[in-house]
């Protein structure tokens, strides 16, 4: 199966990079202890089962027997311990949420996670299948890794790594000795099976080249189709178009400096904008976005849902906004909106936002940069008032970018600090869920960002490709391609 894919990742080692491309390609090769089902609940993968202690400070993982790495070696607790401890030490997710935590092997089939503090979010974060996921690799490879990543890609997944031609393709092939789980497939959980012999991820940066390649039969799947080409593809009877959630369009306020250091000004934007017209501008058609007041994405509401703050989402109330702006002492100074054109949804959304802010009587200026420049400028509090960004989904709310003190926008709220401690240090997720509603209320009071809505990305494939799904990235196991 030939998949046209936009971006080449820096490495397939997910411990060192948060790149989504690395996850989408790499997780066919590497697996994790736990994973998520279609309702976004944690399910076992390489672990057979686990127990969480009463105080929430230890989690004991019982590993599956007879799981082999692609090099033939059987996976044991030593590999798990080496992999997970490295992930805790070097990955962004590990450093953030697992400070002072340590994995330890009790016997070859048992690994114990000792947490410094009870961490209710431990399991959902370890189950995440997107960028920076905690892959299990052989201990020898972990020991021989350098700062740029492991030297070889050996995992336990249904596909094994074959070849990487830089800037051309990554070639994976079916792993004959793969030990699948016996449960029915559900989301990323349950039975995984390689139904094609080869997966070739062909790097095709240009979206219209992907479309032409799919139409001419060069590719079986085009992973990143632009909204404008959908019609052309839908007219072709051999092609099917698939929609998948991609991220949430957020307006990040500079809370350190300028007008939006004042909470009333942030609430004014929340009150004044009409999300529908911004979303239409960004995603072109209601099929490609969802209005959703939840902090988390719409596909995650099976696990993360709260009605709190719903009335404050999409208010479309210019009078209230103008009143709030007056309260905030807005004097007509110029507001700098910054975004990147490397992502069309961000740019088009920003243009629509600018028009709406002008209608509220605000003076605005839109600045557009390429993505690497954008990621550097946004760290400077003198360079922007509002950033328009599509945030990638996160496994649980305390990982969301706007919860961080160090992320551009610089959320700084003592109330949030208290809530986060309460949320994270609950002994397990069930107990933490009671705090989730409070977090969402805080989100609509403090307004760290205004959430516009959830966006979808579009992929397309030949009709012969059956069973392709999306969960934290496109899923390529259990997918067949019969001519």
């Amino acid at each position: 199966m030939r998949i046209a894919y936009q971006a080449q990742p820096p490495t397939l080692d997910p411990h060192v990079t948060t790149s989504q491309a690395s996850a989408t390609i790499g997780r066919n090769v590497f697996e994790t202890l736990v994973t998520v089902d279609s309702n976004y609940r944690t399910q076992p993968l390489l672990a057979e089962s686990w127990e969480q202690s009463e105080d929430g400070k230890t989690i004991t993982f019982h590993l599956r027997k007879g799981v082999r790495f692609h090099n033939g070696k059987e996976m044991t607790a030593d590999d798990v311990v080496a992999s997970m401890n490295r992930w805790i030490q070097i990955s962004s997710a590990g450093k953030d949420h697992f400070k002072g935590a340590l994995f330890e092997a009790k016997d070859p089939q048992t690994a114990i996670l000792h947490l410094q503090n009870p961490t209710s979010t431990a399991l959902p974060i370890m189950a995440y299948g997107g960028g920076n996921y905690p892959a299990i690799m052989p201990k020898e490879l972990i020991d021989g890794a350098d700062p740029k990543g492991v030297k070889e890609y050996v995992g336990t997944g249904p596909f094994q790594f074959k070849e990487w031609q830089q800037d051309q393709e990554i070639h994976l092939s079916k792993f004959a000795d793969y030990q699948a789980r016996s449960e029915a497939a559900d989301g990323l959980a349950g039975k995984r099976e390689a139904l094609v012999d080869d997966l070739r991820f062909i790097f095709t940066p240009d979206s219209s080249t992907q479309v032409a390649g799919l139409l001419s039969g060069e590719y079986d799947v085009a992973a990143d189709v632009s909204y404008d080409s959908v019609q052309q593809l839908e007219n072709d009877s051999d092609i099917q178009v698939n929609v998948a959630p991609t991220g949430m369009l957020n307006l990040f306020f500079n809370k350190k400096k300028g007008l939006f250091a004042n909470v009333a000004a942030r609430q004014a934007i929340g009150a004044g904008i009409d999300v529908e017209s911004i979303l239409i501008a960004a995603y072109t058609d209601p099929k490609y976005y969802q209005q959703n007041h939840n902090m988390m994405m719409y596909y995650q509401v099976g696990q993360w849902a709260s009605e709190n703050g719903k009335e404050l989402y999409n208010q479309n109330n210019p009078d209230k906004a103008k009143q709030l702006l007056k309260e905030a002492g807005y004097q007509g100074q110029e507001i700098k909106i910054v975004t990147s054109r490397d992502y069309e949804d961000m740019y088009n959304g920003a243009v629509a936002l600018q028009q709406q802010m002008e209608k509220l009587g605000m003076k605005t200026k839109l600045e557009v940069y390429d993505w690497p420049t954008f990621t550097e400028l946004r760290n400077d509090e003198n360079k922007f008032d509002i950033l328009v960004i599509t945030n990638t989904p996160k496994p649980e709310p305390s990982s969301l970018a706007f919860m961080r003190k160090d992320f551009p926008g610089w959320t700084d709220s003592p109330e949030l600090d208290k809530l986060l401690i309460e949320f994270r240090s609950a002994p397990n997720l069930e107990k933490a869920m009671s705090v989730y509603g409070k977090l969402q209320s805080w989100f609509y009071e403090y307004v760290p960002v205004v959430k516009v809505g959830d966006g979808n990305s579009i992929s397309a494939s030949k009709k012969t490709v059956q069973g392709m799904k999306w969960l934290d990235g496109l899923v390529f196991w259990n997918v067949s391609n019969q001519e």
Partner: protein
Amino acid sequence: MRIYLIKRILALIPVLFVVSVVIFLIIHITPGDPAAVMLGESATEQDVKALRQQLGLDLPLHTQYVNWMADVLRGDLGDSYFMKESVAESIFSHLQPTLSLAILAQIVALVIAIPIGIAAALRRGTATDQTVMGFSLLAMAVPSFLLALFLILLVGVKLQWLPVAGYKPLEAGLWNHLKYLILPAISLGAIQSALITRMTRSSMLEVLNTNYIKTARSKGVKERTLVYKHALRNAFLPILTVIGQTFGGLVTGAVVTETIFNIPGIGQLIINSVERRDYAVIQGVVLFVTAAYVCINLIVDMLYGVVDPRVRLERK
């Protein structure tokens, strides 16, 4: 001749030096850096800082330049920040597709341009001449990507005769290699041919009006011999210059065409590396491209001597 060669090669050194300083400054002053790109969209500023330190990107600019230059002088262009290979390997692997494409495109250009240019010169002022001139003017104005998109739509998507994107190395078989390059070669070559056609026509016109051609014709030399042996050879010097220039442009990266047809050549390497802020690769490629361009011009100069013995004599 040898002294001339040595002089020309020595003259390359200051050119490369200036280019290296300029490119180094431009890319290091541009915001964004490879550490942030490698760590991905969700990395924290702290992590980026740490990696920047590991990669030596936090050193003062002049120190970084000196370190890099020291390696370059030892023949080491360094390692890519983003890819798991050295810059030399990157250039080498991306050069093969570019060279194949450039040669093929040049052949397409010459096959179109030389006969048409000659025909136009011989039938000066007729409808043939005017049609050729009109088309070549149009071709010079059309950007090559427009022709590329048209070819993709017609030959690739509608007729499905040829693949529209990708690349297979020569080891995969000659036809496999060629079939991916035909459309991009036509879209590049057809556009390039416009300039060569015009140059061939005007250069031929000039020669055809000289006395020796008139004499030869009055002596009854066959028209074919007259045109191809006596006239074309003398008219060839300016044509060769244009060919050299267009070939230089093709080798140093047909950026847009490579992107549209997804050919992993030098042009695409530059684009990708700029997006990744892969300093080492950008610097290495720019140095390489500069050297290549100068060398192609040098080779063209040498070919003057082959085509026209008078040039050889003068240089001695």
